[in-house]
């Protein structure tokens, strides 16, 4: 039996863990402050990555995306990751 492979688009978000100081976010926050937008605070910066996964099922796509996040896209010492998967037509 062959498994029908399908394409999924992964939308991945890599963010600094809450305990890690984000100097970039702080700098942007200060710039927002200088605009006079005093209602905006707690800025955190991160990375947004998109990629296409070929997989046999949604679970399989999830597993493959987890793996690439864990092994390369995020460094678990300082970063967390989250993603959504969208099946491509």
């Amino acid at each position: 039996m062959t498994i029908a492979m399908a394409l999924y688009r992964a939308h991945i978000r890599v963010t600094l863990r809450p305990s890690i100081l984000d100097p970039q976010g702080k700098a942007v926050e200060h710039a927002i402050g200088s605009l006079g937008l005093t209602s905006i605070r707690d800025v955190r910066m991160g990375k947004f990555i998109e990629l296409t996964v070929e997989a046999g099922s949604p679970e399989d796509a999830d597993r493959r995306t987890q793996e690439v996040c864990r092994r390369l896209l995020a460094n678990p010492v300082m970063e967390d990751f989250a993603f959504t998967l969208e099946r491509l037509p």
Partner: protein
Amino acid sequence: MNAPRAHIGIVVFPGSNCDHDAYYVVKKILGQEATFLWHKDTDLRGVDAIVLPGGFSYGDYLRCGAIARFSPIMREVVRFAEAGGSVLGICNGFQILVEAGLLPGVLLRNASLRFICRYVNLRVENASTRFTSACRQGEVLAIPIAHGEGNYFTDDATLRRLEENAQVVFRYSAPDGAVTPEANPNGSLTNIAGIVNEQGNVLGMMPHPERASDPVLGHTDGQKVFRSLIAWVTHQYRGVREEGIAWATSAQQK
């Protein structure tokens, strides 16, 4: 009789820019053998020790050192290190070592957000490693830093282990050796500037000893790191594994 010469391999990644400085110091200043090892090579050509030089390997894409870690040569470097071979990572080389899992922790963006290029003072916290045997314990070295991501960070348990095993080798300090917040250029935890692995055969440091080795440049403290390593590989290389374990034991007894 001529003294035995050390053969130091210097890895060249696309974007390395301190590779020639390290080569120059090893070969011309200290009179040893030096060989460049291309990142696509899979043969360490029988070198006695490896330097991962500073620079911006792979443009620092994704995270500093994150891509270099997957170079073909790094598989061999990891194997070499795991067998007890000496590996010195300088600046970007240190970042590559933590990404490769050969050293614990991570190097974050400098707390100031700025790229910092200037001389700093470093207190030698452990002068019994193979990279610091030419230093006195507590000696203060003048060596420059040049980085935007040198802010050492790790979890509390790892930090405790580093301190207990005397794995912190260099700390940023005042000229008199006082470790103060003012002497910390980049926000590193407990002013950490360089660490060794548990076995003591892999050192990562943000400061650039190769930039403070030629007398023409005014400072030669950086030579002490290279001289220590050369002394190790020329006199004691065959005992690396055993000596490494002995070192770890003596560090625990302190």
